[in-house]
């Protein structure tokens, strides 16, 4: 678990019902300048074997606004303690 100054950092995985919605949001987030990375969804959070979007915690609010604006269907957002430098959102 990665902690900075004793504080645990989290990553947020945006979960989707399918690839279609995930890829749509990926494109929208990129266009809006919200950094995100396509990643396998955490097994603990979903049985979907496709994609999730990994977003650092500080960008989750802008991401939520994009989701609301473009009407992409999401299954939820899983907040998971950062284990390594998985925050390398590009």
């Amino acid at each position: 678990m990665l902690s900075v100054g004793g504080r645990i950092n989290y990553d947020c995985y945006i979960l989707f019902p399918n690839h279609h919605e995930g890829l749509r949001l990926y494109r929208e987030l990129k266009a809006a300048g919200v950094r995100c990375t396509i990643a396998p969804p955490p097994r603990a959070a979903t049985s979907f074997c496709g994609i999730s979007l990994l977003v650092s915690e500080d960008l989750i609010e802008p991401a939520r606004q994009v989701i609301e604006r473009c009407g992409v269907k999401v299954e939820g957002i899983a907040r998971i303690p950062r284990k390594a430098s998985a925050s390398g959102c590009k």
Partner: protein
Amino acid sequence: MKGLFSMDITYLDNAATSWPKPECVYRAVDRFNREIGANPGRGSHRKTIEAGMLVLETRELLAGLFNVKDSSRIVFMPNVTYALNLALKGILNPGDHVVISSMEHNAVARPLHTLEQTGVEVSVVQCAPDGSLDPRGVELAVRDNTRMICMLHASNLTGTIMPVEEVGRIAKERGALFLVDAAQTAGVLPIDVEAQHIDLLAFTGHKGLLGPQGTGGLYIRPGLEVCSLIEGGTGSLSEELSQPDFLPDRFESGTPNTPGLAGLGAGVRYLLEVGIEKVRRHEQELTELLLCGLKEIKGVTLYGPCDSRRQTAVVSLNVAGLDCGELCFMLDRNYGIISRSGLHCSPLAHRTIGTIKKGTCRLSPGFFNTPEDIEKTVRAVAEIARESKW
């Protein structure tokens, strides 16, 4: 273009499948196979993302073309026949009534024949001998239990363009679903699912949309319940044994034809760049030229509206004293002109226009044909007609 017998080929069978395709279609299929090759919608590696993006883009291009607001409501299938089977068998139940025209293709007539055995009732509205449909006939055929009106947008036999918007309005007013078979019109005539009140739109990718064979799909209006006929892996809800209830996954089990869909996307993009109006205008000019030329030939019988404004680029004919198959064969062997003879999988339509016993020879130019192709064809038919013993 040189063919099998080292003869210049004039391809006039675009109603069966368009050919040639735009160069970008060949390149898109090749690029996918060589450089991407992955399964879309499965896993999350960079190649599946690239493949998934291609499928998404094609879906969105089609959504734009048909004025579909939510592209997930377009599901991909191998062809329009699969799409029509899904729309008919996935919706109609015993006791339901469906209205069709007498110009329908076997892609509609055969599934409905099967459904009739289960208690689905079918009314066939008689069209005029030129294939045209009076919407009032549809209105009269609608009953209290009419669940669906199903109609092709244009005939594959005569090119006759159907009054889709008027029939769509009737369906809406009478509370019936409206299923349109756009096999001959997607990419050729404007289609707007909102303005034309279309609940289900079945289309093929390899004709007017200029994509490869093995592509097609169905638009399903939001809120409409359709039973899935094929179930299996979708890459979503993998823990569940039940088929996902959301689209497009519900109807897209198994690996799709991704190279084909990449090509289809390229075809649609090409069409949008050229403009459907330009495609239609060119095909209309060729049809007019063909009709004018053939009308002057003694012994030629033409079918359909014989008016390029009322038909797509499909012209059916017979030459007195010749079997339609002989005519087709002679055009191919002696002139390198590719046409199609017989019943065109449309016995209902042939009964309507009075050619069920003899069939017709069908000439169907496409966007890449030229006026010279048509002049060559008219000259060839004139020579054949002159030499036939009628």
